[in-house]
């Protein structure tokens, strides 16, 4: 039988040192593979720079990570940990409205419409030319 996590030990708070906190593992992470991957990553990080990953002021060690990993795999210890952890409250998928990206609206091809163009041009008007030289000479 697992130890009582709520037992009084001076300075120990059962809600600030759970396996999920030690592993930085969301409790709804599903599947052995996903959990193991997170455990591996956490172990590496904690081994390299434990001061960057403190949990409520306490730095986890690799041994802590290993113990936490065992706890999330053991049914009784897992349940005792889940009891001490807030259920993640996320927006449910059904209520989510997926906003699609704006559609790719292609630019229309450049088409020259001569009729329309010609209508834009002023009407040909007779032009008067100054005779520059006398006619027939």
């Amino acid at each position, binding site marked *: 039988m697992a130890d009582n996590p709520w037992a009084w030990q001076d300075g120990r708070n059962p809600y600030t040192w759970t396996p999920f906190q030690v592993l930085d593992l969301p409790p*709804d992470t599903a599947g052995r593979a996903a959990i193991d991957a997170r455990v591996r990553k956490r172990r590496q990080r904690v081994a390299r720079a434990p001061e960057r990953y403190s949990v409520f002021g306490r730095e986890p060690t690799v041994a802590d990570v290993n113990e936490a990993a065992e706890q999330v795999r053991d049914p009784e210890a*897992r*349940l005792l940990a889940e009891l001490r952890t807030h259920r993640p409250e996320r927006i449910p998928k059904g209520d989510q409205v997926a906003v699609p990206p704006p559609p790719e609206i292609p630019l229309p091809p450049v088409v020259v419409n001569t009729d329309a163009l010609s209508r834009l041009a002023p009407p040909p008007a007779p032009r008067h030319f100054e005779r520059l030289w006398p006619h027939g000479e």
Partner: protein
Amino acid sequence: MSDTWTTAADLRGIVSALRAKISAEKAVDIEAYRLLHDENGDLRPAADSAIALWESGGGVWRDHHLAIAHHHRFYEHPPHAEASPRHSDHLKHWARVHGDDSFWARMRSHLSTVMGEPFPEDVLRSVRRRLPRDLFAPHLTLAEQALPTRPDLASFHLTEIQRSGFPASAIAEARKEFATETVTAALVAAREGRHDDALDALRPRLAADPDNPDLVRSLLFVCRKRMEALVIEEDWHHRSGPFLERVTDLLAPYRAALGTTEAPPPPIAAELARVEFFLGVNVLRTRLDIEKPPATLLEGAHAAVARLRQAFQLNPDLESVSGIYRGARGHLTTALLAVAYALQGLGQGDAVARRYLDEALEHRETVLTNPDSYQLALMVILGMAANTRAELDLGVAAVEKLQDNPATPPEIRRVALPRMRSELANRRMRVR
């Protein structure tokens, strides 16, 4: 509009109301969960704003969220760190979670999903079963630590357990655990004749949990054992005063908690009956002196009556427990008659005194068997302005008893008894 149209509209209304409700509850959950995160985005077990939100609403996990938040506070700010502990209902929401079958079903479903296989039912049941004990454990530990120097704090922890809302059986088990070692220690001390040591052992825990059934029963047992050994001595009542005073003090909170209507459970009732007997007889022997002024006599007699009445109420068959208790009824009739006599001495009328005389005369044979009783009865009867026929008959019988009693002094036999006979006869003629 036909019925079918109306029903469809109703259904749509219900569905949209339901969607609105679920959405409203979900909105509370999402916002409160968000508020649990600090400025760095780290999830904390509690935040005032989140607690306030969940206390106003929320979805199916609401009680669990509040259980964690409130209980976390207990560890962050334990009662001994504060000047005066206040009751904070740290366990109230845990009790709800524990009793909510749907919570455990949801938890099982979640665990099966994340662990990739059905979660074992027996593990779930076992953890659920041990939860009250696990949650009570820190309170019991802290109560133990506080006992020597802070009995008020020890009392706080025991009260938190009692008020928690967990099943009565779990609470009873915790209180039993609190009492067990001390009960054993008191028993050992009593068996070795160290009765005051036994009371010393019980005192601090009784202060923390005054109506703890095991502690009270142990106290009564220690008292009874001491007294049963003592009463074989002639002047026991002079030697038992201080001990019985201690017992009375230690018993007072339990008696107060019991009130006048509630009956204690049978094991305690049987022991308490015996202790009330000893307390009553002790008062009778030490404070019942008809030479004393009536007011003083009345106070003592009233106290003896209260104890002995209580003893018979708790165990109507008290006299058959053992030879020690065989005279219990006689003691009670003596005390009742002493009250009547004192009331007459204070100038109270027949009606008031008669109430006590009548109660004594319910056990006429006992009165006539007991010298203290029949002497007092005779004085009370003669002290009345007018008597019933039954009273006069008893008066006559009492005179004959005095006549037959070799301890009756000669001058009483010569002078007083004939006068009494004659007075009774005169009164007899006046009764129609």
